[in-house]
């Protein structure tokens, strides 16, 4: 479903080249559960941003569902993000003046879905995610765990093909973090492809497939239980 071929992302920092992604090749199948770990600054976020079409590679090819997305225009990328990608961030990134329900509906609003349908779909998610009592609250009235649940609901309301999470538990206590991971795993068990970037080995180890990134390169790519080095 996702195929990266020799993808590089190079930043220019004060005249110096920083290879945040150095010829990374990676294939992710539909419905997979994959964690990405590695030291800080190793290029995990960059990889996730490329996967999520928020960033474009300097070289290499990215095929998403067989389509070469490296040659898409800005607007096509936006449309593809809207339909295929769900994003979760460490800092939730909810809009403070909107209620939980309005935040969840935001992708549908941007996609031009009529208000009746928006409400029906967001209400279903709110109930499934145990947020019914909080739907009219603003983010600052919610706990961290609740905020991240709102963010997950927002990420999946468009029924994307893949859910990308960048340190989703980084700002949560252990208990809420576990809850969030379980929620995402539940979605994965229903067929949603799930990619989680984390520096928490306990969470990383839960994924069926674990990728280790070091210095912009894949250092290890192993299935749970077994272990083998990258090609």
């Amino acid at each position, binding site marked *: 479903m996702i195929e990266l071929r020799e993808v590089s992302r190079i930043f220019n920092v004060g005249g110096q080249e920083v290879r945040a992604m150095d010829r990374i090749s990676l294939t992710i199948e539909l419905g997979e559960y994959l964690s990405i770990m590695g030291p800080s600054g190793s290029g995990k976020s960059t990889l996730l*941003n490329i996967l*999520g079409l*928020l*960033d474009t590679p300097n070289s290499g090819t990215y095929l998403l569902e067989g389509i070469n997305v490296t040659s898409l225009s*800005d*607007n096509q990328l*936006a*449309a593809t*993000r*809207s*339909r295929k*990608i769900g*994003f979760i*961030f460490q*800092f939730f*990134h909810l*809009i403070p*003046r*909107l209620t939980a329900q309005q935040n969840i509906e*935001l*992708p549908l*609003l*941007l*996609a*031009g879905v*009529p*208000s009746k349908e928006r409400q029906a779909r967001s209400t279903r998610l709110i109930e499934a995610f145990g947020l019914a009592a909080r739907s009219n609250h603003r983010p600052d009235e919610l706990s961290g765990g609740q905020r991240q649940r709102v963010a997950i609901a*927002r990420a999946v309301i*468009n029924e994307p093909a893949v859910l990308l999470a960048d340190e989703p538990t980084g700002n949560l206590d252990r208990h809420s973090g576990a809850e969030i991971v379980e929620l995402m795993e539940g979605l994965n068990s229903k067929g949603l492809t799930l990619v989680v970037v984390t520096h928490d080995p306990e969470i990383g180890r839960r994924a069926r497939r674990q990728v280790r990134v070091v210095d912009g390169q894949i250092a290890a790519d192993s299935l749970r239980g077994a272990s083998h080095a990258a090609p």
Partner: protein
Amino acid sequence: MRPLDTIGFAMHSLGSNRVRTLLMLLAMSIGVASVVLLTGIGNGARLYIVDQFASLGTNLVIVIPGRTETASNTPATLVGETPRDLTLGDARALMRGDTVRRLTPVNIGELSIAWRGKERQVPLIGSTSQILEIHHLTMERGVFLPDEDMEIARPVCVIGAKVYRELFGTQNALGEMVRLGGFRCRVIGILGSEGRSLGLDTEELVIVPVAFAQMLLNTEGLFRILIEAKDLDVLDRLKKHISSTIAKRHYGEEDVTIITQDSVLATFDKIFRVLTLTVAGIAGISLVVAGILIMNVMLMAVAQRTAEIGLCKALGASQLQIMLLVVTEALLLSTIGGLIGMTLGFAGSWLVVQFYPTLQTTPPPWAIAAALGTALGTGFIFSLLPARRAARLDPIQALAKH
């Protein structure tokens, strides 16, 4: 994104920052209000002037003896020969034209009027019954000059209100004989106190039939002939009629000057239109200032909401959508500000009318359209820069700015 949703989202974001919103609304509405009010006042002044001229009769043509154009260096003027008089015969001849609605010859002079030992000097006008309509005179009591042939020197007079008071006090004047110069004449009417005629205060006037005035003043000539055209469109034909008739009667010499009011009026009209435009332009500057304020505040708003904009992009908003959101906010501000400003402007115009009823300060429709158009235009133009900046935000960096 649906248009209504876009507006709703923009409204929501405006509502979440009230101080900023109110500030921009204030700037916008003051700009629009001043355009509406100032053009209203300018237009009122123009209408007032036009109206003043109209009361003189815009389709009035005045024929005075002698050429006044400097261009006419004919031998006659060089020799210093006095021009031929205008006569009652000329007036009668001019009356035969299908472009003439009313015509009256006029003579003017000063005479003493006396009744029972009281005497005073008064300006005298010799004319016909037609001058009543031509100069919009009113009658207080009695009747005006009889409608009869202009050559009949009937010894009657119509006197001004002040002349009546000074000679008769509160006694009856109608039917009384007064002495005008060396002649006796019967008072048949008293003029209303309104208005001026030939630059003279009607209160102090004495009006007599023109032929009688010629007797009193001992002259064959006329001071001028007033002609009212059927309407403004035939003014040029009327002028030709006058020139050719006079030329025929004065042995080929067009030795009269024809004055029309429309040219003077047109000049004033133009001056005041330009003035109104200028004032509107000055007021328009305040709109541009409002626009710059909107731009600055929108730039600030975009900077404040970097994360929000980045998020929307990450969630699949296109650059165009982001631009549209920012521009919609600005347009909402300028529309609402414009409507408030219009209300204020009209309220201001209404107030001016209360204090100066003669100044009909209705803002012209074009000014309203221009003010609203400029408000929307500045809102649009000055929001483009912030909108573009927002649309080009890199979502990753925007989201990183926590």
